[in-house]
């Protein structure tokens, strides 16, 4: 069976509010389903790996094939829990270890 390639994205939330993990993920899922529908969202198979509410940092895992769609959906986020917000991609990597190395660099 062919191995599914994954990518890990480090995200920075730019917002004046401090949303909880659930609120953040609701915003991400909302953006993906709004742009690509439920079928498109199911192809991304993304999962939240880590969320730091205080630092407003998150690590998300997604399929390599759907990464462009996820990036577009993340760029289209304009609000989280009704407050103005933006999500910026800080780094992308194939492993969590390399992602952390990129962030440190």
């Amino acid at each position, binding site marked *: 069976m062919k191995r599914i390639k994954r990518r890990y994205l480090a995200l920075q939330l*730019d*917002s004046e509010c401090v949303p909880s993990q659930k609120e953040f993920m609701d915003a991400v899922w909302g953006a993906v389903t*709004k*742009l690509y529908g439920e079928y498109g969202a199911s192809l991304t198979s993304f999962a939240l790996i880590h969320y730091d509410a205080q630092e407003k940092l998150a690590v998300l895992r997604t399929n390599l094939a759907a990464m*462009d769609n996820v*990036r*577009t959906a*993340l*760029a*289209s986020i*304009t609000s989280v829990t009704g407050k*103005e*917000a*933006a999500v*910026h*991609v800080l780094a992308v990597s194939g492993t969590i270890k390399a992602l952390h190395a990129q962030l440190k660099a």
Partner: protein
Amino acid sequence: MKRAFVDLHLRLNSKDPTATTRAIQKSAALGYTLISVPSNPQTHPEETEQLRNLCKTAGLDFASRIDLRPRNQNELLVLLRKFRRKFEVVCTLCESKEVARQAAKDRRVDLLNFPLLDYRDRFFDRAEAELASNGLATLEIDVKPLLVLEGPARVRLLSCLRREIQVAKDYHMPVVVSSGVSNLMLLRKPREMAALASLFSLEGVSALEAVSQNPLTIVRRNREKLSGSFVAPGIRLIKEGTDC
């Protein structure tokens, strides 16, 4: 070589220095190397110089830009004669077919911008693209409406933009993707702008070039033309004196 990213349409209120400084610093932090803030014919040259200095402090390059909104063809010609040599980037807001056609064929126009919300007033069709491909005009697309609009309005906009991008591709016309935002929260990183451009079929390298190489080419070409040593395209004055 590292790509240089450009945002040619950052809408700032130059009368609010605090907000302007914050926007410029944020653009620098997001990874842009050159920005441009549109002026209108009434803008004082000192305001442009002030912006240039603020950008220099933040480590950004600044290109002066004027947005012309003529009512007819003759008014466009008058405005171009008056302002072309004073600004590095000239954009024409095409609100009528007559203006759009003249702007496309005039080599003094750098950017063609069409009203984003009124789809009937978007005169970018095959005839327009053919005229523009013979000139130097580039199609400018702002991403702001993509972020602000929702539902059917965004669907209609995307479908319209996709059609226009296909026409531009058919006639080998360059495209520039700009932010067009005045709100800091709507500012996006250059690669995020390229990702948003994929929504209207501008993908991969073409999308990245729309936020880097294409706008940079316009600015470089005009800087060369505005420099004192420019004689004609390809001819530059290198040395002046009696021994030449």
